[in-house]
């Protein structure tokens, strides 16, 4: 777990080595960015002299947390850089460091993006949904995004992602979770027929984009991105992360209104199970991180137990209903 008081001089030394300055870089107290749990996020306020002029500049520091959610810095950085090169709104990554001698864990530093990740106004929300739709329309085969897994056919993408998240769950678990094992099989057996292969952000919604006024400035938190079906994103937005903005039925109508992308109730239910499964598997990693002491903070305990179990509760109800309908 990053101790920011220890890290501050080390970040100053790191920046001094990277930036062309008159006499080194001074770093003010690190400011914890209070969003997300997958990574430690901090605002770094640097000051230095350059060619005789005083410079004040901020960066966003994103630090790995002991395997949280089974994701890694390398994949996230490669994706972000490829998306930025493709013209998508993504923060500019200045430096990436994998040497544990620097901060004890991999991290990267981005240019600070001005704006807010809090509740967007109506225009900014609409802009976000339009841009997410635009992400799904990109010709990903032409972008050479270096994903670790490229599915051959749409159904293959579902199987890849189910297996990916089951692996993360099995890494983090203390005991097997029968309802997650059941869900993995259910998802493979019940995948919709009308699947597509597109870029998928994987974790879209409020708090994971920066907006200023009516416009989105940057999509953040790319560690779940992959090639898959776009409805995974729409359900993550409308069924999970966006519930503080409006309820799922309203989201379904809103998405159709803004993008023209219509999602049937059956497809909505399937991807709801998928995302609850994904979330529960990812959250299991927090249990291992907590009990091994890699990060003994209380949010890790809550994510690895109660939050995971609430998702299992949700998905097992939908699967149970599918059994009941089959028996009618």
């Amino acid at each position, binding site marked *: 777990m990053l101790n920011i008081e220890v890290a501050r001089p080390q970040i100053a030394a790191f920046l001094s080595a990277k930036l062309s300055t008159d006499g080194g870089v001074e770093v003010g107290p690190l400011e*914890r960015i*209070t969003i997300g749990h997958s990574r430690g996020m901090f605002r770094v306020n640097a000051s230095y002299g350059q060619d005789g002029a005083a410079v004040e500049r901020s960066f966003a520091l994103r630090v790995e947390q002991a395997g949280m959610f089974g994701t890694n810095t390398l994949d996230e950085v490669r994706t972000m850089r490829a998306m930025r090169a493709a013209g998508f709104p993504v923060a500019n990554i200045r430096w990436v460091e994998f040497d544990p001698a620097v901060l004890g864990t991999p991290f990267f530093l981005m240019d600070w993006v001005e704006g807010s990740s809090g509740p967007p106004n109506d225009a900014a929300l609409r802009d976000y949904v339009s841009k997410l739709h635009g992400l799904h329309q990109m010709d990903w085969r032409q972008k050479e995004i270096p994903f670790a897994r490229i599915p051959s056919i749409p159904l293959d993408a579902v199987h890849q992602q189910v297996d990916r998240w089951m692996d993360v769950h099995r890494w983090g678990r203390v*005991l*097997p*979770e*029968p*309802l997650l*094992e*059941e869900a*993995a*099989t*259910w998802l493979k*057996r019940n995948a919709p027929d009308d699947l597509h292969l597109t870029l998928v952000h994987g974790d879209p919604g409020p708090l994971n984009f920066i907006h200023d006024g009516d416009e989105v400035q940057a999509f953040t938190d790319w560690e779940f991105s992959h090639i898959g079906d776009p409805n995974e994103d729409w359900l993550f937005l409308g069924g999970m992360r966006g519930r503080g903005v409006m309820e799922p039925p309203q989201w379904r109508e809103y998405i159709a209104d803004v993008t023209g992308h219509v999602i049937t109730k059956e497809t909505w239910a399937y991807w709801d199970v998928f995302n609850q499964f994904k979330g529960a598997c990812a959250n299991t990693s927090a249990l291992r991180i907590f009990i091994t002491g890699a990060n003994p*903070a*209380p*949010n890790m*305990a*809550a*994510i690895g*137990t*109660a*939050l995971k*179990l*609430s998702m*299992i*509760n949700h998905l*097992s109800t939908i699967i*149970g209903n599918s*059994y009941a309908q089959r028996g009618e």
Partner: protein
Amino acid sequence: MPEAKRPTVDEVLAGALHTIENQLLPNLEDTWARAAAGQLMGTLEYARVLLAGDENVDAQVDAVETVVGGLLHDHPELAAVLEGSEGETRGFTALERASRLLSHAVANDSEAAEAIRTELRPLIVQQATDNLNETMTMLMAFGGRPRRVEH
């Protein structure tokens, strides 16, 4: 009945909760620190729930073993599904077997599969619900909103 030491663990936890809520939180301004303090209260309340109840999974494992044993007795063909399911502990083995059976039932409409759905699945769902309820204090505090300490 053994006589408790004074102060008891529960009294210490209650005191810690009271201190965080009344002495630390009012003086914390940093958003992340306030959220962490609220979440810490949730984990301490969870510890109190554990103290008052059962910290191990033995009773749940017993129940799973009984139902799985009954399914194997009534449907011996299910033994093939469980081949190689032994784990390092009794609890791991029982839940691995339950996992295999539930997954098997997803893809089958046999009499045995129906028995898994009607006999084993409700038990597993109930245990998951019990576990969620036991950890609910942490979920309630996850957003960082502390609640009144109950003594």
